[in-house]
């Protein structure tokens, strides 16, 4: 007999952690977000001309309005934030990066925004009902050519050249834009499954390993392993906690959600 598509015999052979890997967070797009401030406060995502890092997120159904997948900012100073977002203009879907250094300067040489339309090479329709993986890799070196890369479903889809500005971050949210001193907006109604942070700029081959043909894997088995790794709603987390099972334990927290918003689906 099947139990969530898994036979009883097979289920018994799985570890408890594996059996918990059936869930995700379903955000409401109104007030739900996952607080990940400790990740930003650790400094791993600073754009300081020295650090290299990568962020990966798995999601589906983000809607067609401008909505933030994840974002970081600092407590003082306007326009000191960056985000990954989804958006539609008519039927044209888009995934993009937006990054500010201050009120008059962007993090990229070309401006604040690096967006990939679905019609571009390796572009995706973010709201097509399928699970998607969006990876941002950053080498924050000043003026780095190709220092910022967007990978969609395992493939390189957008490349930006860094400007000469820098930034550092204290707050991080999944599912909402945080900007200008911990203000939040542009909440996403997405289902969000897996989220990981690496303290290195992953290569195309390493990003392809995260994609793994369109199914989430235990990224702790990759080289390098993520320094922060979350399988939302799983791993024995006591809701609303989001347990960090990466190499550094930094738990997140589902804000303004009920247990009914932990849904039994994930990329598989």
């Amino acid at each position: 007999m099947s139990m969530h598509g898994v036979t009883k015999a097979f289920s018994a052979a799985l570890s408890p952690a594996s059996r918990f890997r059936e869930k995700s967070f379903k955000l409401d797009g109104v007030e739900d977000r996952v607080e990940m401030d400790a990740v930003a406060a650790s400094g791993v995502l600073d754009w300081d001309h020295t650090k290299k890092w990568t962020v990966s997120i798995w999601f589906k159904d983000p809607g067609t309005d401008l909505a933030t997948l994840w974002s970081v900012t600092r407590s003082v100073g306007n326009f000191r934030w960056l985000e990954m977002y989804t958006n539609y203009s008519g039927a044209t879907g888009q995934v993009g990066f937006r990054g500010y250094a201050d009120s008059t300067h962007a993090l990229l040489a070309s401006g604040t925004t690096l967006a990939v339309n679905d019609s571009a090479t390796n572009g995706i329709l973010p709201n097509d009902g399928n699970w998607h993986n969006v990876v941002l890799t950053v080498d924050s070196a000043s003026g780095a050519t190709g220092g910022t890369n967007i990978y969609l479903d395992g493939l390189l889809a957008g490349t930006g050249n860094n400007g000469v500005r820098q930034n550092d971050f204290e707050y991080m949210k999944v599912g909402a834009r945080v900007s200008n001193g911990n203000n939040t907006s542009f909440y996403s109604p997405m289902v969000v499954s897996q989220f990981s942070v690496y303290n290195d700029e992953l290569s195309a081959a390493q990003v392809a390993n995260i994609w793994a043909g369109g199914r989430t894997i235990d990224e702790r088995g990759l080289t390098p392993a993520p320094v922060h790794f979350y399988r939302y709603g799983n791993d024995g987390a006591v809701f609303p906690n989001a347990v960090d099972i990466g190499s550094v334990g930094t738990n997140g927290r589902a804000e303004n959600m009920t247990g009914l918003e932990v849904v039994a689906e994930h990329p598989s």
Partner: protein
Amino acid sequence: MKHYKVFDSGDVADAISSPACVTTNPRYNLAKDRAILSFRVSVDGCINHEEALALVHGPEWQSEEDEP
């Protein structure tokens, strides 16, 4: 299913103290004078999810910022 209601910021603390309130860390509007909270049960003056989504997409709650 959650039910949503907008409160003046001065009334948020009392509203959150209700056992029926889901919200733990409210979303405020851009002026920070109102917040939207959610509840496990219907409360007087509440709106549904669809209405709440439409509300927070309005200019009082979010606006695009000028490009540097």
